[in-house]
């Protein structure tokens, strides 16, 4: 009887796993997707080893993905996996798990360990002194703790936010714009401040309604916030962080325009996405790698901006942006770059 029960448990669990895996597609399909060339490159010269720790997933269409994509681009540039090895820990929202990961990667001889989240700073400050031969990077911040093996990086999210705001205010017919954000802090707050400033500079009578939903994961509440904006008369929406994916759909359903940030969200709603502010961290990464190659392991802080090409305005080719609006956007970009426009962030 006992053994029988044990067996049933096993079979049941297996059935659960397989049924879940099965869904509709056979599990075999999956296997081909995972690239597995690691063994092949072992023989070659020692590659530059990068480890990255991220709070959410490499496919979040937002903050984590922006860095991972940049790393892949840099890897490509350097000559693929032979030249640069990338390993990652995603979903590290627990700060002390991240700390363990940082220490572990450092002790395994990785050349550069990137702690991609402002919550990891304290841990890094602890760990970095123990590994003087390892280079660390973290963001978003400009604080290197005055250590010579820590790089810091930050995005001036308000710059692209401002440009998005300029376009949004020019395109809004109802004069009402809706913003969906997670919690009013950090990168998200910065983007929203820039966006509001841009919109108000373009049309002083514009109403920008902001909704902070108190969560980075509640997709349902984020899209209901978007619905609320639409009901309140908004015909242009924007939002930041990974839970807005549902809100993009709401914009599409209601024919409202959408502005993205962090990564391109055009694929979610090709008809209504107008523009995205895309983070391209490779600008900062390239400089770090160059310094590391010279034997400088840290001490520098980088800001990605419109000026240095770390922030890119990515326009949806499928949306026909009126020429005067595009011109206004370009003027805003130029103004921010030459300093004639200073985006207020306080």
């Amino acid at each position, binding site marked *: 009887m006992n053994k029988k029960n044990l067996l049933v448990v096993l079979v049941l669990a297996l059935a659960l796993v397989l049924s879940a895996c099965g*869904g*509709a597609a056979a599990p075999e399909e999956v296997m081909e997707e995972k690239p597995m060339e690691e063994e092949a490159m072992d023989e070659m010269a020692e590659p530059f080893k990068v480890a990255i720790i991220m709070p959410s997933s490499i496919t979040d269409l937002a903050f984590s993905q922006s860095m991972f994509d940049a790393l892949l681009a840099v890897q490509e540039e350097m000559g693929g996996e032979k030249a640069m090895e990338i390993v990652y820990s995603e979903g590290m929202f627990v700060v002390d798990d991240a700390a363990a990961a940082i220490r572990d990667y450092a002790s395994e001889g990785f050349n550069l360990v990137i702690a991609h989240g402002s919550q990891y700073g304290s841990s890094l400050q602890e760990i970095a002194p123990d590994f003087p031969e390892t280079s660390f990077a973290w963001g978003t911040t400009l604080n290197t703790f005055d250590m010579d093996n820590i790089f810091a990086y930050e995005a001036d999210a308000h710059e692209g936010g401002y440009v998005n705001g300029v376009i949004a205010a020019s395109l809004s017919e109802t004069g009402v714009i809706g913003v969906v954000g997670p919690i009013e802090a950090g990168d998200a707050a910065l983007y929203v401040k820039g966006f509001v400033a841009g919109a108000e500079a373009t049309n002083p009578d514009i109403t920008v309604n902001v*909704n902070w939903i108190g969560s980075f*994961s509640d997709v349902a509440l984020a899209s209901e916030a978007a619905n609320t904006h639409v009901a309140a008369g908004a015909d242009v929406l924007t939002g930041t962080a990974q839970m807005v*994916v549902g809100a993009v759909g709401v914009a599409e359903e209601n024919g409202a325009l959408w502005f993205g940030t962090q990564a391109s969200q055009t694929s979610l709603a090709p008809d209504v996405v107008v523009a995205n502010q895309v983070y391209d961290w490779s600008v900062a990464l390239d400089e770090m790698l160059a310094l590391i190659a010279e034997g400088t392991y840290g001490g520098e802080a980088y800001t990605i901006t419109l000026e240095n090409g770390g922030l890119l305005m990515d326009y949806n080719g499928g949306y026909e942006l009126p020429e005067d609006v595009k011109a206004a956007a370009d003027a805003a970009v130029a103004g921010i770059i030459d300093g004639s426009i200073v985006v207020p962030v306080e």
Partner: protein
Amino acid sequence: MTEVFSATVIIGILTSGIRLATPYLYAAIGETFGQRSGVLNLGVDGQMLLGAFAAFYVAFTTENLWLGLLAAMIVGALMGLGMAYVTVNLHAEQGISGIGFYLFGLGMSELLFKMLLGTVETVKGFPITPVPLLSKIPVIGEIFFQQNILVYGAFLLVPIAWFILNKTTLGLKIRSVGENPEAADSLGVSVARVRYFTIILGGTLSGLAGASMSIALLNVFQQNMTSGLGFIAVALVYFGAWRAWGVLAGALLFSMVNSMQLWMQVLNIPIPSDIAVMLPYILTIIVLVATVSRVRAPSALTKPFDRGH
């Protein structure tokens, strides 16, 4: 400030509230069946996540929403089957097994999402289907009868659940198994069979709850997209004191306050956003305190029985 009471705002709050309540209703009614038969399932959130993924993936690949719905129900039912076996046959502690199934669903749905989709995609979900005639009623028509089909389904489920639980032999069996299994057993009711039925039904409805999010209301799938919604659904069963109508009241209260706080932010009412977000949680407790102090709760509290013998 006067605009707070404008028709737009009130209609907006109610329409949003109805939509937000939908997944809670499916999941909480399902949980009600389980708890009525004596099984606490804390794994609802995991069942919802796997259901949401199954619905989304099948709808995305086959472009058939109904197949997606079916897939969500099957996956939910399988999760329920597992829960039933573990709690009924193996007498495992219920709360903790539920947490196990929650973790399994949470991890598995994300894993499958990564393996099979890789990135956030969208589907064309169930469209808004106005109910003929009724949707033409001013205000009420706009609020209640211009929604998608899964929203209607959730609200229809309430009277159905009430009817099954209170007016059918099956309902009597479920209640007697939850109330006094020994007596039910001695009257020839199979406790195990009834519990299998209710837990699998609960899983199926949780799967539907997930589907209502991924292919009707939000039309995307993302890891942990329920964000703990299933736990709120379990709480709502307690709010409703194990009665379908009570669950409806709880789901509507929670959702309406939630949509109200969204409006409060839009209307620039000067309170910090975090405090606004707290409101539905606080008010749910306050309302329960206020009502329970008037209506005495059941006196036959925590009378455990040993199913082992």
